[in-house]
């Protein structure tokens, strides 16, 4: 009996162990090993930290690294600012059918692939695109307006891609906020701002933190949107990783980049949790 229960337990655990082992732990160890070797000549390699040294000293790589981090944080903040009112409306103000429809509307863009979504933005924003034509038609512009290929377009794409992942956790936490708690806030003399600051935001904190973590990770790891909407000056760290691995065949530097990104995202997530005084356990639980 005991032996059977033990086998059952191991079998139940197997998918998790396989998933963790084969897809996460082993590839990361392998990546790490690749990142610390240096090519001497055809098929000859030596262990060294030269790629990390290169990654940390080459101004372009460092610039891209920080730029990606700062832009991802910015995208997260903008997403939060836009998603919060949307989530509040869905969770607290919309009722019944409208609520479901609005929620579905947030979801619909994700029925199509990210590539198609990004192309959608390109159709809207390009020089011969819809918005440019509308502006000319309305007399607000006297020549075609190019809105693509800059950081603003990239930001729009990133925020759009991330919206749902911020709205869902926010709606869930805000729905659990009792209406009468908000009313009590007003009743006892609170203004809209103070009720938001002292009651709604503290209540929504778990949703805000988990939403921000997800959106930040998604933005940091996004490849398509920055490349397609960002244009000639767009620099995204994932693009550099892709370039090193695929275009340059320089797996060693690419792996070093990958590890830097892993460390960066871990540090920023940790900082976010510290800043809001939460533990990972609380946020995930």
């Amino acid at each position, binding site marked *: 009996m005991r032996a059977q229960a033990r086998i059952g337990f191991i079998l139940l655990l197997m998918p998790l162990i396989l998933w963790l082992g*084969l897809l996460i732990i*082993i*590839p990361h*160890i*392998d990546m790490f090993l*690749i990142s610390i*070797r240096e090519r001497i000549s*055809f*098929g000859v*390699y030596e262990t060294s930290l030269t790629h990390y040294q290169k990654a940390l000293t080459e*101004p*372009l*790589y460092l*610039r*891209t690294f920080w730029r990606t981090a700062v832009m991802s944080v910015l995208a997260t903040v903008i997403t939060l600012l836009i998603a919060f009112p949307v989530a509040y409306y869905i969770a607290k103000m919309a009722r019944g059918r409208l609520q479901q429809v609005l929620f579905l509307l947030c979801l619909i863009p994700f029925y199509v692939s990210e590539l198609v979504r990004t192309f959608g933005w390109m159709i809207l924003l*390009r*020089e*011969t695109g819809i918005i440019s034509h509308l502006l000319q038609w309305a007399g607000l512009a006297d020549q075609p307006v*190019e809105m*693509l*290929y800059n950081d603003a377009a990239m930001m729009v794409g990133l925020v759009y891609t991330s919206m749902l992942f911020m709205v869902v956790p926010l709606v869930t936490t805000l729905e659990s906020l009792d209406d009468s708690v908000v009313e009590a806030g007003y009743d006892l003399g609170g203004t809209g701002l103070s009720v938001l600051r002292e009651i709604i935001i503290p209540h929504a904190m778990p949703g805000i933190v988990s939403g921000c973590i997800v959106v930040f990770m998604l933005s940091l790891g996004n490849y398509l949107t920055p*490349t*397609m909407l960002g*244009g*000639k*000056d767009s*620099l995204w760290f994932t693009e*550099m990783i892709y*370039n*090193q*691995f*695929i*275009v*340059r*065949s*320089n*797996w060693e530097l690419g792996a070093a980049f990958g590890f830097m990104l892993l460390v960066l995202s871990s540090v920023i997530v940790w900082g976010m949790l510290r800043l809001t005084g939460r533990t990972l356990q609380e946020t995930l639980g």
Partner: protein
Amino acid sequence: MTRTILLTGTLLAGLTTVAQADTLRLLTWGGYAPDDVIELFEEQTGHTVEVTKSNNEEMIAKLRATGGGGFDLAQPSQDRIMGPQMEFGIYKPIDVSKLDQDLFIPSMLDATMANTTVNGDVYGVPHVWGTSGLVMNTAEAGDIVKDYTDLCDPAVAGKVSYRLKRPTLIGFAFSMGEDPFAAYDDEAKYTEIMEKVEAKLIECKANVKTYWGGGDELMNLVRSGEVTASMAWDTGGWKLNDDNSDITFVAPASGALGWIDTFVLPAKGQADDVAYEWINFVMQPEIAAKITAAAGNFTASAGADEFAEDALKAKYQASFPQEAIDNIKWYPPVPAGLEIIEGDVLDRVQAAN
């Protein structure tokens, strides 16, 4: 080295193929294996063909990740065979005797075999060839843009595009009067040339609307008129020519860059015989003509010209007068290490303001 990746790769490859050895897993470019050709082949031979579309860099990266497994036949360009083979050993020698050599244009077969020989073994035979040069709207930019460097002319500011990849570096180098191919074996000289190209590309950056990434993206830019001149493949220009007769491919004054896509056998391919069958099949003139129709480029098949569409031949002749054909710069094999130099240059151009 990458033992675990190799291990999982082989495992996966093993799982998917052992059962059905008469499946040909083909790693190729879009258009090189059109559906009607596959149907004919499957009908005639009873084999099955699975196609994965890709490009040079991804083909090599994929084969490298699996140590040359997962595919039975691949089609990288001829200049990308020697280096990766020496570095990673991802291909296996081709037994040319199993091929019907009469089907190939002899000069092209000889040149490709010479360029892909490592330690006395031949690793590649030619399939499709073409050039890259300038695609432009001749009505708007024809008078200004004659060569790659003319893309930096203020008269076309904000209306030009090119890729941020090695063909651009090579093209600009030629157009600036250098010969980068001659400097392939001289790293110092090559670095010097690339530094000049880098300065030019940074200076030119303000002129560029965007660096295009994929063929479809470029086609959209040119078709919509947002871009009037761009560095691109010949087929792109000829396809756009169908929609707008002003747009076409122009061979630059310093010479178009010629490439040949090949057939290679991945090191762990498991259906070599089917692969040979496929090569012999698609090199037949009638079949090669079908591929030319789908891909837009001519093949190394001898006599396929007879079966090619007249319209395509006309476009080809318009773009390539005899002196332009003689001026085509064929890519020699890329020695390992050059791509690191080029990569750094491209990074710096991308980062420049």
